[in-house]
C-alpha cells in the first residue's frame, strides 16, 4: 500500500511539478572540466541475490567529451548495460549503486552528481528524458503498444517543456520528419505495430531527441536491425549528432559499428573497464589481450578463409570472478604467479591517452607480439 501511494505521488510529480519548477541542483557550482559532459568515477553497482553479491559494475571510471561519441564495448554480462542504466538511475532492486560518482555537467545549469541523488529526487526526473535520454535495443518492446506514436513523443515534450498539446504535436511532427519518416502527419496517429523495425527505431530516436538532450544513451540501437537498416540508422544518428551537438554513449558489441560511429572507446570485461582510448588506437593497436582477442575473432570481411582466432573458454559467472586479473584464465599472455594473484590490475596509461588494465601490457607491446593478432 505504501509502495503504491508513493508511485502515485511520483506520477503526480512527473505530470505537474517537473516542467515548471526547475529544481535546485545537488552540487554547488564549481569550475567545470574543460570539455566533459559526464564524468564517472569508480562507479559500483552490486546486485544482492541468493547466490551472493554480484558485482555487475565494479569500479568503472570514464568521462564523456561534449559532442563526441563514446562507445562501451563488451560481451553480454560485462556490465555495459548496467552502467548505462545507472546513469539514468533505472537500476531496480536488488540492484544498487553502492559507490562512486557520476557527475553530469549540463550546458547551462550547475553540475549534479547523479549517483548521490535519491531515487525520486525531482532533479532526476528533470534529467531523465530531458537532459539525458535513451534509445533501447528492441524498439517493439520499448514502445507502448497501446498508445499512438504521436502520443508517446508528445508525452516527453509535455513533461519536460512548457508546451500546449498542439505545440507538442507540431514538434513531434517536425522531429519525425527530421529522423526521415515520410508523411509524419499521418504517422503520429499510428501505433507501433503498424510500422517496420527500422521505422520504430526512428520513432525511438525521435522520442529520445525531441527534448534536445545533452547526452543520448544508445543501448545496442542497431542490433535488432538488418544491415541495410542498421546503416541507415547509423547515418541518421551521426547526422543528428552533428546537427544537434548531442553527446552519445553507444553501447554495443559490434566492433564494426564502433569503428564507424565512435570517437572514444572503453572495453569492458566482467564489470571493469580493461582498456580505454580513442577509436583508432583501440582498433589498430590494442594493448589489452582481451581487446586483441575480440578483434581477432571477428570473421572480418577482409580476412581470408582460415581458422578464426578465438578466445578460449567463456565469460565466467559474476559469482565466481577469478582472483587477480579477471581475464587470466582465458588470456594468452597469462603468467602464473603474476596475473592470478592479488587485486585486479588497475587501469594504467600505456601510451599517452591510452589506458589498459594489464600488468604485462608494456611487455607485450615491446615484444611486438600484439601485431600478430591485430594485423587485420
Amino acid at each position, binding site marked *: 500500500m505504501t509502495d503504491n501511494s508513493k508511485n502515485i505521488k511520483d506520477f503526480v510529480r512527473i505530470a505537474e511539478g517537473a516542467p515548471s519548477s526547475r529544481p535546485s541542483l545537488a552540487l554547488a557550482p564549481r569550475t567545470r572540466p574543460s570539455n566533459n559532459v559526464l564524468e564517472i568515477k569508480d562507479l559500483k553497482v552490486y546486485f544482492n541475490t541468493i547466490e551472493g553479491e554480484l558485482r555487475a559494475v565494479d569500479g568503472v571510471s570514464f568521462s564523456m567529451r561534449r559532442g563526441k561519441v563514446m562507445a562501451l564495448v563488451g560481451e553480454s554480462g560485462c556490465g555495459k548495460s548496467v552502467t548505462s542504466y545507472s546513469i539514468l538511475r533505472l537500476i531496480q532492486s536488488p540492484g544498487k549503486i553502492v559507490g562512486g560518482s557520476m557527475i553530469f555537467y549540463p550546458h547551462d545549469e550547475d553540475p549534479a552528481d547523479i549517483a548521490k541523488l535519491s531515487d525520486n529526487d525531482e532533479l532526476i526526473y528533470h534529467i531523465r528524458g530531458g537532459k539525458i535520454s535513451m534509445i533501447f535495443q528492441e524498439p517493439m518492446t520499448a514502445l507502448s503498444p497501446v498508445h499512438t506514436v504521436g502520443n508517446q513523443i508528445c508525452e516527453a515534450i509535455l513533461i519536460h517543456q512548457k508546451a500546449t498539446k498542439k505545440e507538442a504535436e507540431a514538434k513531434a511532427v517536425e522531429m519525425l520528419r527530421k529522423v526521415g519518416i515520410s508523411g509524419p502527419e499521418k504517422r503520429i496517429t499510428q501505433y507501433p505495430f503498424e510500422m517496420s523495425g527500422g521505422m520504430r527505431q526512428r520513432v525511438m530516436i525521435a522520442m529520445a531527441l525531441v527534448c534536445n538532450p545533452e547526452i543520448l544513451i544508445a543501448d545496442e540501437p542497431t542490433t535488432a536491425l538488418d544491415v541495410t537498416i542498421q546503416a541507415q540508422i547509423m547515418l541518421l544518428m551521426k547526422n543528428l549528432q552533428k546537427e544537434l551537438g548531442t553527446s552519445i554513449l553507444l553501447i554495443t558489441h559490434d566492433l564494426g559499428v564502433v569503428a564507424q560511429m565512435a570517437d572514444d572507446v572503453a572495453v569492458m570485461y566482467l564489470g571493469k573497464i580493461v582498456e580505454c582510448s580513442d577509436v*583508432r588506437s583501440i582498433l589498430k593497436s590494442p594493448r589489452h589481450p582481451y581487446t586483441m582477442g575480440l578483434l581477432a575473432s571477428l570473421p572480418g570481411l577482409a580476412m581470408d578463409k582460415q581458422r578464426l582466432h578465438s578466445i578460449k573458454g567463456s565469460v565466467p559467472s559474476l559469482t565466481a570472478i577469478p582472483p587477480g586479473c579477471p581475464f587470466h584464465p582465458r588470456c594468452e599472455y597469462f603468467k602464473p604467479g603474476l596475473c592470478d594473484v592479488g587485486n585486479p590490475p588497475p587501469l594504467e596509461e600505456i601510451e599517452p591517452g591510452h589506458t589498459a588494465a594489464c600488468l604485462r601490457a608494456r611487455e607485450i607491446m615491446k615484444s611486438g607480439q600484439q601485431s600478430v593478432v591485430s594485423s587485420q
Partner: protein
Amino acid sequence: MKDRFKEFEWEDKEGMFEVALDKALDGKFKDEHFPLLRVKNLCKYFPIYSKGFLKKQIGTIKAVDDISFDLMPGETLGLVGESGCGKTTAGRTILRALDPTSGEVHFDTFTKLVDLCKIPEKKLKPLRTKMQMIFQDPYASLNPRMTVRQIVAEPLVIHNLAKGQELEDRVVEMLRKVGLKPEHRTRYPHAFSGGQRQRIGIARALIMHPSLVVCDEAVSALDVSVQAQVINLLQDLQEDLGLTYIFIAHNLGVVKHICDDIAVMYAGRIVELAKTDDLFNDPRHPYTKMLLSAVPNPDPDVPMNPALSGEVPDISNLPPGCSFHSRCSICKEGCKDEKQELFKVGDGHYVSCNLVDGKK
C-alpha cells in the same frame, strides 16, 4: 560442378520420387561430382485468409518463389538476405519441415536419389536421419525439462538406432566431439552458457551422422568470442564428418568466412548466386552491392559509404516486374514490368538483373 544448372535425365522408379543412384549415374556422370542436394524451382506460398466466418483466400505470400541451386557434398552454401526475404522458409521447406507448394528437391541418400517434395510422409521419417537442423536461439530450442543426455540421445531413441550402453557411448562421444564434458550429460540446459547450449544443439543435430545440416542463424545469438569458437567447431566437424551445410545468416562476415557459395535472396527469390570470392570481389546485382556497402567496416579509416534507399517491400503485395526496382539505383522503365530470371554471367555466377552486363 562445371555447369550447375545442367539438366540430367530423370528416371522415374517407384512412383515419382526415387531413382537408383547407379542408374542415374549410368554413363553420364562418372567424371562429375554429383550434387548432394539439387533444388529446382522450389516454391512455398502461404495463403492469406480474410477475417470473419468465411475465411476466403484473399492473397498469397510468396515466401519462397522459384529458387534453384545445387549443393555439392562437403560444401557450404550460404543463404543471406534481410529479414523477411524467405531464407528461413527456404531452409525449412528444403528439409520438408514445411510442405512445399511446388518444385523439386533431389536429395542424394548415397543409395538412391529422392525427391523430398513428393515423397510420402511415411517414407520421410527414415530420411530424417540424413538431414538435420541447428536452430538460432539456444535458449528456446532446448527443452528445459530434459537433461543434456536426453536431449542429445533423443534422435537415436526416436529412430531406434541405439540403446543401452551403445546409446550412452554415442552420447558421450558426441559430447566430446562438440567440446563438452561427459559429466555434463546429467545437467539441464539452464546450467549452461549460450555458447555451450549451442554446442548441445549441434550435438543433437549431428549424433545420427547426417549428411545435410541446415544451420539457421546458428551463431547469430552468440557473443563475438564464443561465436568464433562455434564457427571453428562447425568447420572442424564438417571436415571430420564430411558434412554439407546450408548456412542461413544475415551476418555477411560470418557467411564469407564459412561458405563456399552464397545465394543472396530478396523477396523470396535468389537474386545472385556465386562463389564466395566472386560475390565479395565482383558483386553484380544492385541489391548485393547495397548489402555489401551497408556492412560497417571494423577499420575506422575505411569510411562507410552505404548507397541505401527504402525498405523491404510488402511481400504479400510485391510490385510486378523486378521486385527490387523500387529501391534500385539503376532501375530503368523496363524493370517495372519485366520479370527477371536468373542467368549466367560467369563460372558458377548467376544474377537476376536484366541490366547487368556480361549476359551469356
